[in-house]
């Protein structure tokens, strides 16, 4: 680019800046799509050491390839799951919002290279081309917004760049590129802004974007890129699944409990992530209801994972004991267990009653303090604790008829107070030795005629 053309571009940029002197202050909401660094409609294909900050997702397609060698930082891969579906819905909404925003400047036919633009809505009725450097001057407005509405394709030449200056220290979420068909970033391009493409997005080798690559219907193709979600940290909150425990059931009796989740963003979905529900019970993934009628007795341990709308998860481990039909109530005693002390032998027997002896004892949930064991035949909890703390354990007793009872215990293990080694000789021992030495001395002297 020679000096003359540079001057022309500068003049155009100045004019554009004057025309677009009314900074756009509205904000664009991406909804849940903001948690994605890459989102595609058909496929996500990566080659080389690409780093994506945020989620990688695809929906309604499901193919995500090239991870690894690509890596996802601060997010996860969502392959046509509920999270990706919701993000695509939100992407469509955001795309349409931008598309409906009136233009402030029509740049159709104008190459963006060499321009300095101030906040506004810039429109291209057909394609947009960037060759060289595009500077977006936020004029110090932290809420400045640059919207680019492109009728068909967006293409950047190799080594091009988009930079936001005077951005008030934050260049995140200030530029949005609504692309009517496909976007292609040339080799080595350093791009800024979120690309919302109706069709596909291609980041050729070594191009980096300080923004998201969100394709509504087509593919996102990556090749050794850095995709930075621009300050959005996909930090999941702690999602708690409640209640802490589920009641036991009985074969043939209707069972109806609901697990809920909190801490994340509704709605949640629920799934059994490990173990299995008692035979005959089912979990409603949308409501968290566990319903049905157990068909076989036993102890069933399983985990239920709740996933919020952002894909953040929380899990809780449950144990449900299903007693046989007609089983009596089996109770365990004592109701509490005495505390233990590290390095000190511990012995406490749990006994069952109400059923038909003999009973067998086992751990239904939780764990005994390290160092202690449960005798399955006698119910004796014994051993030498080696770790301080509070330990929750549920002891289960099964009678000869297969009927089950259980009780939850908390065993506290206190720190060990070492016993004194004790004097080599206590006061009595010292006096005795003193007397004996004196007597021995006298005796020996007599023996030796001294």
């Amino acid at each position, binding site marked *: 680019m020679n000096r003359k053309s540079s001057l022309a571009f500068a003049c155009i940029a100045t004019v554009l800046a004057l025309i677009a002197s009314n900074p756009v202050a509205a904000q664009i909401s991406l909804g849940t799509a903001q948690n994605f660094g890459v989102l595609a409609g058909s496929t996500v294909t990566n080659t080389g050491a690409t780093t994506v900050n945020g989620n990688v997702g695809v929906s309604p397609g499901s193919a995500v390839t090239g991870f690894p060698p690509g890596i996802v930082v601060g997010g996860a891969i969502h392959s046509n799951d509920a999270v990706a579906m919701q993000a695509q819905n939100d992407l469509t909404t955001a795309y349409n919002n931008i598309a409906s925003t009136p233009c402030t400047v029509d740049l159709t036919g104008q190459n963006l290279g060499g321009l300095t633009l101030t906040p506004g809505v810039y429109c291209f009725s057909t394609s947009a081309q960037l060759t060289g450097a595009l500077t977006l001057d936020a004029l110090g407005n932290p809420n400045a917004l640059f919207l680019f509405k492109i009728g068909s394709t967006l293409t950047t030449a190799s080594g091009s760049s988009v930079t936001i200056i005077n951005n008030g220290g934050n260049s995140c979420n200030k530029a949005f590129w609504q692309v009517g068909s496909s976007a292609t970033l040339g080799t080595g391009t350093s791009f800024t802004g979120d690309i919302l493409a109706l069709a596909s997005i291609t980041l050729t080798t070594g191009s980096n974007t300080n923004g998201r690559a969100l394709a509504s219907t087509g593919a996102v193709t990556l090749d050794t890129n850095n995709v930075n979600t621009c300050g959005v940290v996909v930090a999941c909150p702690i999602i708690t699944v409640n209640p802490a425990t589920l009641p036991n059931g009985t074969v043939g009796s209707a069972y109806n409990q609901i697990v809920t989740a909190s801490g994340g963003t509704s709605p949640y979905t629920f799934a059994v992530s490990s173990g299995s529900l008692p035979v005959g019970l089912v979990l409603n993934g949308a409501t968290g209801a566990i319903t049905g009628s157990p068909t076989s007795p036993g102890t069933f341990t399983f985990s239920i994972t709740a996933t919020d709308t952002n894909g953040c998860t929380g899990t809780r481990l449950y144990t449900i004991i299903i007693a046989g039909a007609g089983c009596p109530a089996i109770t365990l005693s004592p109701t509490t267990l005495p505390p233990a002390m590290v390095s000190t032998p511990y012995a406490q027997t749990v006994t069952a009653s109400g059923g038909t002896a003999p009973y067998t004892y086992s751990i239904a949930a939780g764990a005994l303090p390290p160092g202690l064991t449960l005798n399955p035949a006698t119910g004796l909890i014994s051993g030498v604790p*080696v770790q301080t703390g509070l330990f929750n354990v549920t002891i289960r007793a099964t009678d000869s008829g297969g009927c089950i009872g259980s009780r939850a215990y908390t065993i506290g293990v206190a720190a060990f107070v070492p016993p004194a080694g004790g004097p*080599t000789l206590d006061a009595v021992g*010292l006096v005795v030795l*003193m007397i004996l*030495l*004196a007597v021995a*001395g006298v005796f020996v*002297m007599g023996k030796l005629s001294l």
Partner: protein
Amino acid sequence: MARTRKASVAQRPLRPRVVFVAKFCAALIVFYAIVALNPVNDFVIVPFTAIVARCAAAILGTLESGIQVTGTVIRSPRFALDVENGCNGIEAAILLAAAILAFPSTLRSRLIGLAVTGVAIELLNLVRLGSLFWLGEYHRPIFDFFHVAVWQSLVILAAIAMFIFWSLRFAERPVAASR
């Protein structure tokens, strides 16, 4: 013949034996006064006790893994023992030393007796600590019995035996006495 021997023993002068007992008591008073001094306690007794604990831990460490010592506390995953003042064998050694010093003998044999019996008492105490630790780990119910009854008796008997053995076999008679 036996009557003659008994009579001769009875007729022997009491003074040397009284002197022995007096010296024995005096030595005890001096020794206890010394160890009661704070500087002696702080700079001799306490460090020595820590050394005893470390030695006992080292011996235990050759027999089992996981033995640690912090200051005067010996610890394993199953048991811990605090070697306090009085657990270090010093008092037994003091009694024995007082008896040896009070007994009529040459300085050389006294010094040898002090060194040998002192080391023997400390070695015996290390065995005591090691065995008590082992009992605490694996036979805790009988720990206190061995601690209070068995080992005290063993230490007393060992100290008496050492003194009698030394005084009968190794205590050289002073020149004046041998004449």
